[in-house]
């Protein structure tokens, strides 16, 4: 263990504080803005000294916003709930479809397997609008337009390739000998998959699911094109505070704070899996 002088420790601590402040500052500033009125935010020069107000949060939660022109209704909490439904639903479906598929691609080499895997990956490269406009027509014909189910299906363009390709790497890292040993003991293939492969790839699956959730949460264009206003996620809903009569900076800040909370909570909860999972997948033996 190397010895550090008090001065070194002080400098190191100071450097760490500076680095943390640098990265945290934008978020801290947004949090501070969320407790200010528009007038306070726009004063020149800006100041961190202000009388805090929760009116921005109250407006968002109550759905009633008093702008400089008139009162208007906002649906941000519904947008937030839509984001939760769409992101959680699409990740859940991707896990159900993608994890067994990833296992198959990792363990079983069959004719066309790589082609199929790359085809699925290519969904990530497709310009969204190129896909969405024809899809709008089909969705209207088959009754999926403006439904959560239809949107969750389209969100598979984001989540499924991500989960499939990340989880495939984890399955490939697990030695097949462990599975063989379990099967020699008389267990079925499905039992081996559930009791051996899945638990061993657990951190990787959690990491992939979390990443897919974040990508789905941040998506903007899918719901915008395919759904009505009542099914829009927070990414679209947050723009409601930018109106012809002015930008409601305080409400935008409060909306940002509220919209990052679910992802932040999930990330903190899954942090251990995330670091473990990502590092496991990154280093191949």
């Amino acid at each position, binding site marked *: 263990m190397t010895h550090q002088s008090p001065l070194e420790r002080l400098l190191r601590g100071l450097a760490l504080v500076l680095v943390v402040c640098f990265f945290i500052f934008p978020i801290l500033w947004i949090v501070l803005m969320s407790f200010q*009125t*528009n*007038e306070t935010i*726009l*004063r*020149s020069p800006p100041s961190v000294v202000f009388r805090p107000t929760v009116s921005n949060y109250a407006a968002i939660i109550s759905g009633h916003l*008093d*702008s*400089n*022109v*008139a009162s*208007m209704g906002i649906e941000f909490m519904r947008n937030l709930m839509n984001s939760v439904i769409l992101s959680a639903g699409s990740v859940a479906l991707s896990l159900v479809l993608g994890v067994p598929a990833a296992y198959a691609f990792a363990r079983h080499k069959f004719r066309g397997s790589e082609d199929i895997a790359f085809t699925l990956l290519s969904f990530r490269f497709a310009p969204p*609008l190129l896909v*969405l*406009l*024809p899809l*709008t*027509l089909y969705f*209207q014909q088959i009754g999926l*337009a*403006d439904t959560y189910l239809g949107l969750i299906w389209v969100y598979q363009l984001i989540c499924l390739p991500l989960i499939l390709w990340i989880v495939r790497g984890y399955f490939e890292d697990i030695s097949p000998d462990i599975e063989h040993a379990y099967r020699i003991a008389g267990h079925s293939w499905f039992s081996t998959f559930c009791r051996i492969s899945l638990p061993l790839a657990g951190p990787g699956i959690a990491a992939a699911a979390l990443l897919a959730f974040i990508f789905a949460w941040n998506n903007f*264009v899918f719901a*915008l*094109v395919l759904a*009505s*206003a*009542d099914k*829009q996620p927070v990414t*679209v809903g947050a*723009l*409601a505070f*930018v*109106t*012809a*009569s*002015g*930008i409601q900076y305080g409400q935008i800040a409060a909306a940002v704070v509220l919209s990052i909370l679910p992802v932040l909570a999930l990330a903190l909860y899954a942090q251990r899996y995330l670091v473990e999972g990502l590092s496991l997948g990154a280093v191949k033996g």
Partner: protein
Amino acid sequence: MHEKEKDLVDAYMRGQMSRRSLLRGLAALGMTAGTASVLVNAAATRALAADFDWKAHSGKSVKLLLNKHPYTDAMIANLENFKALTGMNVEYDIFPEDVYFDKVTAALSSRSSEYDAFMTGAYMTWTYGPAGWVVDHSEWIQDAAKTNPHYNWDDMLEGVRKSCAWNGQPGGALGSEDAKQWCIPWGYEQNNLTYNAAMLEKAGVGVPTDLDGLMEAAAAAQAANEGVYGIGVRGSRSWATIHPGFLSAYANLGQSDLNVNDDGKLSAAMNTAGSKDFHAKWVKMIQDSGARDWSTHTWYQVGTDLGAGKSAMIYDADILGYFMNGAGNAMEGQLAYAPFAASGDGKPTPNIWIWSLAMSKFSKQPDAAWYFLQWASGPEHALFGATQMDFVNPVRKSVWADAGFRDRLSGSYPGYVDMHDVSAPGASIKFTPQPLFFDLMTEWAASLQKMVAKEVPVDEGLDQLAASIDRQLKDAGLG
């Protein structure tokens, strides 16, 4: 309603008394102005029903695609009257303005029948109309069986009405005889001056009346007010930088964006001597007295800075100045308005933005949708929106003639009514309609940015811009 109140409202509806007298009479009976106006509006709705079969589409439901805007709020506040009048239901989707036109374009280009009608800007119909995405509304306007006798199409301000009609020929005059009415004007914005009277007074300058005066006033206001820049104009790399004050002044000096040759071909008109002179002054004004981050300024930054007291005046949409004079702004109640003619002849010719309503070509019930459109753009709703909500600027002459509306505006927005009265005769779209509108105007804005940043001299920049535009017009078969 009590008999006395009913008699007063009925007398008003028969034209036997003015709106102001009616409100005064109802006030004497103990009724607030708000309640009185609701009563009048309800009576107007009943009167509408007398001469026209408003129930022809009773039971049907139309769906609208709307932008989040005070005009929309005003319509929703009055929607129950429409439902009562027609027996129809109205559903609507409201999207924020930042993504609104993406949603419209996606819905129309995919030929979706979900929305029967939608809000649009007149410029957008230069794309939607020729593409066959919107109907020619003339068919409905001119059909006496489908349009109520009180609709009074001619009550629409002429420049605004004509600006929403185009024959689809690149360079074709707006509102020509063979033009198709691609949209119905709903509310509009003129580009004029909104100024901070105290800041100009502190600088010892009056309200500018020509371009040189504008440059001097902006510089003086900036010098006299610490931390304040002289004039707010848009500067982002977008077509929207060109259309407000910039094009209004440019057109007032007799300049145009494109030449329309005898053979119908188009060519760039930005590199004439007059245009170069104007550009040089405009660029210098921004360099000397504009925002330091001018190249990022859109509608929002221009308005926000004026409302926060960071700029002395703006040359932009009048309703932007209207909004910034409202509650919640540091400069609430301190702004004033003036018409502006860059040439100094006192005859402003503002370019305008028109929020309009249009029916989708893919609607399965256009006749029912038209019932909504004629009500929403009709004189009764226009008056309700203007007097009870923030529906400024109305597009109907009758609303601008209403004493109650004028008094209300003049009370809180000094100079606004006069500004409108002086500017309205010359207010129209000054662009040449053509299918490359958004691309070419965005390039113009990019070119302006280079000139302000001194990356290219004004003369050279405009020659380069004109050459590039001519090339694109030729490539598209337009030049």
